[in-house]
């Protein structure tokens, strides 16, 4: 088996998620990541503000 047919064999043997499932899961992951990023940013800003009050 050469490289390309091997890759094709590997790709065909995979069970892939449906488009709908992929969209739902990736949207959930994207939203959770964005919310966490905003939360951490807010947290950092809060700490910077609190530290600036005391220093």
């Amino acid at each position, binding site marked *: 088996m050469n490289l390309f047919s091997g890759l094709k064999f*590997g790709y065909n043997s*995979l069970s892939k998620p449906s488009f709908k499932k992929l969209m739902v899961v990736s949207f959930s992951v994207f939203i959770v*990541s964005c919310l*966490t990023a905003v939360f951490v940013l807010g947290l950092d800003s809060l700490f910077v503000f609190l530290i600036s009050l005391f220093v």
Partner: protein
Amino acid sequence: MSGPFPILLLVFSVLDCNVLIDGSCIFLNSRDLTYGFSFRKKFLLTVLCIIVYRFLLMIPLPFVDLEYVQSLFGSNSSLMFLNVVTGGSLSSVSIVALGITPYISASILVQMLSVVIPVIAKYHKMGYTGEKKIKRLTDVLAIVLGVIEAIGIVFGFRSAGLLIDTNWYALFVDIIVLIVGMLFVVFMSNYISDHLFGNGVSIILTVGILSNFVSGVRSLFMDLTVNASLSTKIFVIFAIAFGLFVLFSFTTWLHLCVNRIHVVYSSRVSMSGQSVNDHSVIPIRLVGSGVLPVIFATWVLTFPSLLTTLTGKEFPWMVIFDTSRWFSANEWWLSFGAILYCLLIIGFAYYYQNLTFNCTEIADTLKRNGGVVSGVRPGLPTAVFLHDQVKYITLLGSICLCIISLIPIVVSRVFSVGHVGFMGTSVIIVVSTVLDCLTEYKASVKVDRYVRSKSFFGMESLFLLSKNNGI
């Protein structure tokens, strides 16, 4: 269960139900009332750990010239990657600047050593006791690596002129503070993994990456919209959001793709006297090694650059490792660095896959337990079949990893923007962590529903849940 114990449980459960009915926990529906207590407590404690970690990141290491360090990190793209992964702790030179990296290095090293040292390989087969021994070994190795890294960082800072005070007392204090900070982060990540929600190491890494996410998107937007009109700015916002979503979707797709090899076990007689055929599945993931090959490859690439920065000596051949100079039309030969990077990723992916998925061992285990892969003879033919499957899937997965890790470099080159550290490798870490957390949550809810469906008036489930909660 005797004495006031069941009554206490009932009171706890009712109190918790009331809280949840008020709608304070948005993650659970009305069927997950008793589950909410455990999950909410674990989730809130995990958030508390994150808050403590972010607070510690704000405290700078004593005797360090912060402004000079930040200017140094802004100009070096390789150091920027390390900085993104450690959540900005390196550029801010906080007391937890070492972060979780020594522990990750130690765990990778222990896994690698299991091939060379038979005792560690034996621990892997010993079950729970072996796991505990491996964990202890990883902790010790993490401390050793942490001490070495702390000494290296502090002396490197001194030789690069980043320290305000360079006497022995200042050096000693900085080393001790870095080691204690690292130990605290390792303790916290272990606590999250053992008692709370998700994998501690992944969560700390993810939080570190996401802390740079908003500022990264903002700087990309600013770079792309210099002197642009309002309509262009709106278009760029949507383009960035769409691009990120596509990247997240592709990474999620990589994590969801799996090859399920069906195994049939020989018949056995059940309690009722009927003949039963057992089935199971051997999953081979497209990116079974996760992000580790990319981290390995990046560390190999970062090392010469780090050495140059810290020692101040320039070697001409080190230019090839500078990611900001890849894919340039004028210096096309420097793109060989990208090829080397991809080869390292593929090589490490194969190495790690061989470590974690031993085809011969799996084939032997199947044969011993009377299991047969459909259409393949047991023993050596099964091992060859599994090896063929793993070989091509790993190659495909590692090529996908190469594509994702090269995206930030290509984007920064094509659009002539600064380092886009929040794309690529960082997305792989974030997606895998979030997917793990979602899977863990889903599995816990399923177990909880099953326990409640088997109980009578909920008392049995309350007892089981109380055991899980440690009441």
